[in-house]
C-alpha cells in the first residue's frame, strides 16, 4: 500500500503544470474563447506530438504509453486549472476511454493508435449516467447497410461536434445499443454549433440523415464496459474540476492579499480567511478523493466498486468546483462578476460541467442504490 506518486508521475504532473502555465494562461484562454474553433491548433498539435499526452492512458499494444488513470488524472488536473481549450478532453479522456472499454479489437486497433499519435480529434456527447446514454441513444436509429451502418436522428449536445474529425455516438440498433463513429464531414451530417455560456468547451447539435457510420462496439464488452467507461469519464472530469477549484482558491488568495478595504488587507478579515479555508477543505478532500479513485482505477478493482469510487470523486468535484467558483466571485467583490477577471470563467465551467456524466442528484441516487441494496 503506497499512496505516494512515483517519480515518473511527478514528472508528468510538473511538465503539465509548466507547459499549460505557458500556453494556456488567461490571455490564451480568452483568445481561444473568441476564436471560431474555440482552441489553438498549435497547442493541440504540441500536446499530441511533443508531449505525448494523447497516448498516456492507451495501452502500448495500441500505440500508447501504457500508463493509466493516475497519470491522465494528473494531466487533467492541470488542464482544469488552466481551463485548457482543446480537443484533448473529448478525444483523449472521453472517446479513447469509451473505445478502449467497449470497442471490438479491430476497432481499438484502428482508432486508438491514431488517437495516441495525436492524429485525430473526436467529438462525443457528455451525457449523464449510463442510463442516460441508453435513453439518448434512442434519439438516433442505426441500420445496417452492408459492412457499414447508416444513422438517422439527433445528438443534442456533442462536445467538439463542430470541429472534431470524427464523431462518436451511441445509437439504437435492432439488437440494442451500439457505438458508432461518423466522419464529421460525411454526407448526411448536419452541424449546429451551440452558443453555450461556457465558451471554453464547445458543443454542437448534430443531426444525422442516413449518415454513413462504422460500428465500434463489441457486444460482449458492452455491459461491463459501459460502467467502467462511465467511471473513468467521471474520474477524469473530477480531476479537471479539482484543478478548476484550486485555481479559484489561488486567484482569491492572491487577490485578497493585495486588495484593501477599511484600511486593511481584505485577506486579513477573519470571514474571508475562513471562507478561503473552507475552499481549501473542499479542495483537499476532493484531491484525496480523486487520487483514491484514480488508484482504484489503476488497480484490480471490480466494476461495481470502481463505479462507487468514481461517483464519490465526481460528487465532491461538482460541489467543490461550484463552491470555489462562487466564493471566488464573492470574495473578489465588485470585480468578481466582471468579464475582465477570471472567476466568471471558472463559474461558467462549473455550471456547465455539473451536467456532464450525471448531476449530483443522480449520482447520489446511484450511489444510494449500491449502498442500500448491499448492506445487511
Amino acid at each position, binding site marked *: 500500500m503506497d499512496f505516494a506518486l512515483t517519480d515518473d508521475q511527478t514528472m508528468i504532473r510538473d511538465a503539465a503544470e509548466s507547459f499549460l502555465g505557458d500556453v494556456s494562461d488567461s490571455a490564451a484562454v480568452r483568445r481561444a474563447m473568441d476564436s471560431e474553433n474555440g482552441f489553438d491548433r498549435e497547442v493541440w498539435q504540441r500536446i499530441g506530438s511533443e508531449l505525448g499526452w494523447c497516448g498516456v492512458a492507451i495501452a502500448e499494444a495500441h500505440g500508447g504509453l501504457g500508463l493509466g488513470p493516475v497519470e491522465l488524472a494528473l494531466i487533467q488536473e492541470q488542464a482544469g486549472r488552466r481551463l485548457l481549450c482543446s480537443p484533448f478532453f473529448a478525444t483523449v479522456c472521453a472517446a479513447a476511454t469509451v473505445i478502449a472499454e467497449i470497442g471490438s479489437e479491430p476497432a481499438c486497433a484502428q482508432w486508438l493508435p491514431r488517437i495516441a499519435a495525436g492524429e485525430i480529434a473526436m467529438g462525443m456527447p457528455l451525457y449523464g449516467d449510463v442510463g442516460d446514454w441508453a435513453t439518448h441513444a434512442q434519439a438516433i436509429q442505426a441500420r445496417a447497410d452492408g459492412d457499414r451502418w447508416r444513422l438517422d436522428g439527433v445528438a443534442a449536445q456533442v462536445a467538439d461536434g463542430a470541429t472534431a474529425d470524427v464523431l462518436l455516438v451511441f445509437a439504437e440498433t435492432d439488437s440494442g445499443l451500439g457505438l458508432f463513429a461518423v466522419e464529421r464531414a460525411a454526407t448526411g451530417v448536419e452541424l449546429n454549433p451551440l452558443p453555450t455560456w461556457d465558451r471554453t468547451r464547445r458543443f454542437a447539435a448534430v443531426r444525422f440523415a442516413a449518415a454513413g457510420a462504422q460500428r465500434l462496439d463489441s457486444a460482449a464488452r458492452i455491459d461491463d464496459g459501459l460502467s467502467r467507461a462511465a467511471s473513468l469519464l467521471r474520474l477524469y472530469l473530477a480531476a479537471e474540476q479539482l484543478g478548476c477549484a484550486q485555481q479559484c482558491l489561488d486567484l482569491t488568495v492572491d487577490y485578497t492579499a493585495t486588495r484593501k*478595504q477599511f484600511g486593511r488587507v481584505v485577506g486579513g478579515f477573519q470571514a474571508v480567511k475562513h471562507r478561503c479555508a473552507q475552499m481549501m477543505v473542499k479542495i483537499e478532500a476532493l484531491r484525496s478523493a480523486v487520487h483514491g479513485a484514480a488508484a482504484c482505477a489503476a488497480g484490480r478493482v471490480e466494476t461495481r466498486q470502481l463505479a462507487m469510487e468514481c461517483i464519490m470523486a465526481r460528487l465532491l468535484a461538482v460541489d467543490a468546483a461550484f463552491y470555489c467558483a462562487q466564493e471566488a466571485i464573492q470574495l473578489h467583490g465588485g470585480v468578481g462578476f466582471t468579464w475582465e477577471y477570471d472567476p466568471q470563467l471558472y463559474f461558467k465551467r462549473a455550471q456547465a460541467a455539473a451536467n456532464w456524466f450525471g448531476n449530483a442528484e443522480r449520482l447520489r441516487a446511484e450511489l444510494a442504490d449500491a449502498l442500500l441494496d448491499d448492506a445487511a
Partner: protein
Amino acid sequence: MNLEPTAADEAFRVEVAQWMREHLSGDFAALKFRGGPGDEEHEPALRKRWERELASGGWTCVGWPREHGGRGLSIEQQVIFHEEYARAGGPGRMGHIGEGLIGPALIQFGTPAQQQRFLPEIVAGREYWAQGYSEPGAGSDLANVQTRCWQEADGSWRVQGQKIWTSLAHESDWIFVIARCEPGSKGNKGLAFLLMPLDQPGIEIRPIRQISGGAEFNEVYFDGAVAQADHLVGQPGEGWKVAMGLLEVERGVSTLGQQMHFAHELELIIKAAKRNGRANDAAIRARIAQAWCGLRVMRYNALRMLSGGQIGLRREALIYKYYWSNWHRDLGELAMDVLGAEGSVMSDDPDVRPLQQMFFFSRADTIYAGTNEIQLNLIAERGLGMPREPRPAG
C-alpha cells in the same frame, strides 16, 4: 395586526391593474417582464417612452408628496401599485434612480430652486439619473472617497476622479456625485454632494462588461468636469449626510414590487420543471417549496418594515438585504438545476432566457450595495451590539 385590505384599497388595486392592462399593450407589450436586473440594457428608448406613458397616467413618483408633483399615495397604496405593476409584467423602471433616490433626497435636502429645476423632469420621465458613489479602490468602504472637487472663482465646482458600478450611465442625463471637497479629510468628513450633467467634455463613460456578457454598469471618469454653483446639495462637507439619506430610501416600498418579480421567476421555474419532468424529482420539489417559503418571508418581512418596526425594533430592515440577495442567488441555482444541460446553451426562449440571466446576474446581488460580509458585520454590530471591526489607522 390585520392583513385584510380595506374596500378602498381593493378598488385601487383594480384601478392599477386595469390601467396596466390597457396601457402595457401595443408597442409596450414587448416590454413585459423585461428590463429588470441583468436585463437593464433592453430597449432603453422604448422604456423611456413607457416612463412618459406612466407619467401621463400619473403613475410616476406615486409616493412623493403632491406639492412636489407626486401622487401622495399612502404606504398601503404604494405597495398595491408596485405589486400590480410587477404582476402585470411592468418593465424595469428606467426612472428608478431619479424617482427612488435623487428625487427624495432633493425633497429632503434640496433648495427650492433645485426642487423646481429637477423634480418636474423626473416626474415627467424627461430626465434620467445615474449615481456616482462607489470608487474602484473603495468597494464596500463607501466612505473611502478619493474623487476630489474644488470650487472655482465663479462658484462652480470642478470634479476630478473616478466612479464605478454606475448603472445605465450611458442612458442617463444627470449624475449625482459624492466627492472630497476638503483636502486631507478622511472617511465621511469633508465630502460634497454634487449634481452634474453627464454630457460634458470632462466626463467619460466606459462600460464594464460583466459575467453575463452585458454591460449595464459603467466606470465614469471625471477630468475637471463641472457642476454649477447652485447644484451643490446640502453644505460643502456634509455630503455624507445627503448620501446616507438616499441609502435609507432605497429600502422602501418598492421591495414589494421586487418580490412580485421574484414570484414571476419562481413561476417560470415551476413551468420549466413541469415541462422537462424535473417536477417529479423529490429534491427539486423540496427546493421549490423552500423557495416559496422565502417569498412569503420576504413579503411578511416587508410588511413588518412598513408597519413601523413595532414587532422587532427594525431588526427586519437590518436583515432584509442579506436575506433577499442570498435567496435570489439560491433561486438562480435552482433555475439552472431545473434546466439541466439545456441551461448551458444561451436561449432565446422567453421562458428560459430570463432564468439564465437571473442565474448569472444574481451573483452580483450578494456583492453590490453592501456585500454579504458587510451586511453581516452591520447586523452583528447594529442589531446585536457586538464589538465593531477594528479599523487600523491607514
